[in-house]
């Protein structure tokens, strides 16, 4: 087999939180949903990610309440344990893999963040990353004694000053922090979000359903990064990638269909409702998407929701069909269904086309689908010289190949 040692390395992140990325994934016969509350599970998947030579394990986080007041479906209201706790626990049973925690700047003071993340970087021996988010769900406010969540632009302005203040605290820290500070990561789509990423992020997590989406996003971000005087090559763009693997494409499609069968129409609509933060119970699935109702009642910014719905609504697609299709491309991320060889080829094609620097792997169900990836796709990528066989160093910064700390970031 041809190996090209000079070809760009593919970066891999593992998004391992919860029960997998299909809302029906936990119902897979081999899924182990109850284990996501046990240390055994995190030991197993942490070591698996490290065996697959992933840069990092990444966890999202939401600070709103689910399952209260009957709005959230009994089948979707998955409790999520605190991501920092899960990640540092995995640090104790792994040696190299980075650990990226999503922490909101809207509901943490700079002091809380600085101390929490400094501790995380120290106890993990320099493997900490911070996915800097501003929170998206309006109902989060009530958990922090506030009536309303600040507007998005105010949240991003606060993010800028919070990161600057935390950076100042890290620079003054008495106990050395292995990486100086955690690696900065960003996930956000709006203009404000992208500008924030351009100034601050060393890696970016985003959805990109197609290779063209990926190229457009990465090109835009690289331009924004260059425009603020930073080197675009020092930033990794890591779109989400859900996947279903089987020996042949046909078998993968059948496996996918069987898994999606477990999500009935009601569940699909509930999943969509939760994403749009709007109550869709009582809506007729066979009627057109109730665009007016949704825009009037959503708790999310209307323009964001309109962006997702305007196209399908204008085509007269029914609510049921839209919800069913939505579940098939979870939250706008790419979904791969096929053989290990096809998957490796697809990943290489995306990277070589400039659509991304790597992928945030989102197994459709856990842990079996991740095991398949590590056992069957990782060796192919390694054979082709596109995935390292060993970790280059100890810290997440080394693993991401980021080079020295950019001193003026966030200053």
């Amino acid at each position, binding site marked *: 087999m041809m190996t090209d040692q000079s070809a760009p390395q593919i970066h891999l992140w593992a998004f391992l939180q919860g029960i997998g990325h299909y809302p029906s994934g*936990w*119902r897979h*016969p081999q*899924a182990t*949903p*109850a284990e996501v*509350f*046990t*240390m055994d599970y*995190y*030991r197993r998947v942490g070591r698996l990610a490290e065996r697959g030579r992933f840069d990092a394990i990444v966890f999202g986080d*939401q*600070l*709103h*309440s*689910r*399952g*209260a*007041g009957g709005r*959230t*479906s*009994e*089948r979707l*209201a*998955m*409790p*999520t*344990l*605190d991501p*920092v*706790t*899960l*990640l*540092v*626990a*995995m*640090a*104790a*049973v792994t040696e190299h893999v980075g650990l990226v925690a999503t922490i909101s700047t809207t*509901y*943490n*003071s700079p*002091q*809380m963040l600085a*101390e*929490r993340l*400094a*501790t995380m970087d*120290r*106890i*993990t021996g320099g493997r900490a990353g911070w996915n800097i988010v501003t929170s998206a769900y309006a*109902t989060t406010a*009530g*958990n*922090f*004694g506030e009536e309303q969540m600040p507007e998005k632009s105010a949240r991003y302005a606060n993010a800028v000053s919070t990161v600057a203040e935390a950076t100042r605290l890290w620079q003054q820290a*008495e*106990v050395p922090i292995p990486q100086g500070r955690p690696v900065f990561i960003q996930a956000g789509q709006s203009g404000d979000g992208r500008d924030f990423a351009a100034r601050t992020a060393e890696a970016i997590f985003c959805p990109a359903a197609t290779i063209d989406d990926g190229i457009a996003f990465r090109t835009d971000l690289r331009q924004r990064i260059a425009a603020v005087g930073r080197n675009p090559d020092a930033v990794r763009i890591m779109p989400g990638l859900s996947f279903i693997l089987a020996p042949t494409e046909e078998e993968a499609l059948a496996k996918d269909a069987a898994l999606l069968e477990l999500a*009935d129409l009601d*569940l699909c609509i509930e999943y969509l409702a939760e994403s749009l933060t709007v109550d869709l119970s009582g809506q007729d699935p066979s009627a057109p998407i109730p665009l007016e109702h949704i825009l009037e009642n959503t708790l999310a910014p209307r323009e964001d929701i309109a962006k997702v719905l305007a196209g399908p609504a204008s085509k007269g697609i029914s609510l049921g069909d839209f919800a069913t299709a939505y579940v098939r491309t979870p939250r706008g991320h790419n979904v791969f269904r096929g053989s290990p060889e096809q998957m490796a080829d697809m990943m290489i094609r995306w990277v070589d086309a400039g659509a991304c620097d790597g992928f945030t792997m989102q197994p459709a169900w856990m842990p079996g689908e991740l095991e398949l990836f590590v056992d069957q796709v990782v060796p192919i990528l390694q054979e082709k010289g596109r995935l390292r066989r060993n970790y280059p160093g100890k810290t997440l910064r080394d693993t991401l190949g980021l080079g020295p700390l950019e001193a003026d970031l966030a200053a």
Partner: protein
Amino acid sequence: MSRAFLLSVSTGDPRLNDPLWARSVLSAAEQAGIDLFVMGRPDARPFDAQVILGWAAAATSRIGIVAAVPAATSHPFHVARALSAVDFLSDGRSGWLPLSGDSPDGMAEDMVAAVRGLWDGWDPDTLIIDKASGRYLDASRVRSTNHEGPFFKVAGPVNAMRPPQGHILLVIDGADPVGAADADIALVSEGQVLPARRRLLKTSVDSDPGATAERFFRGEIDGAHFELNDAMADIALIAERFGPLVDAREGKTLRQRLGLALEEFA
């Protein structure tokens, strides 16, 4: 079950941030049969003990792990979640020690009430996880918290879960006593009286184990607490001198092993 003699230690040593040092100290304490390892102290906070606790949950298997949690720089929603996760990952071996520090009067008490309220928003056995029916949990067993105290207003419920211990073990320190009427454990200095189900006397590794044992049998104290200075050496001495006072422990969670099951409160 007879009353157990409890052994507890604490450290605010910044080296607890260092995985190599932390691993050796925690494992020595565990080998020594120490019941509780308190991370952080009222007068020293070089780290966020809740973060260390998550790591310690994976790095230990028997010892009770307790985080000092300062009211001034914590929020009940974050605290309830972080500690719930630690309790899951440690199989019910965790505790917390709220600190008032220089926060306004009553703030730490408000934090304790809010955090407990968030845990109580989830009934035990809320999860169903039935693949056949597709029911993951019973939503009728999850309630809003609506805590409104003088300092914290929290709608809830917390998006975590009720910890395996129900409420993780509540420890208060006589050096910074938080006014909880129903603490599980109080770390008291000589002559100090604090309401708690068990009182551990803060003493030194050089004190007389025989005299300590007598006070335990008279019911004056329930065990001993040591602040580690030279951690490895102190732990070795504690094991040698006070270890013989400790009987075998039975039970799954820390509460059960220490005879402090939550049901006794009801």
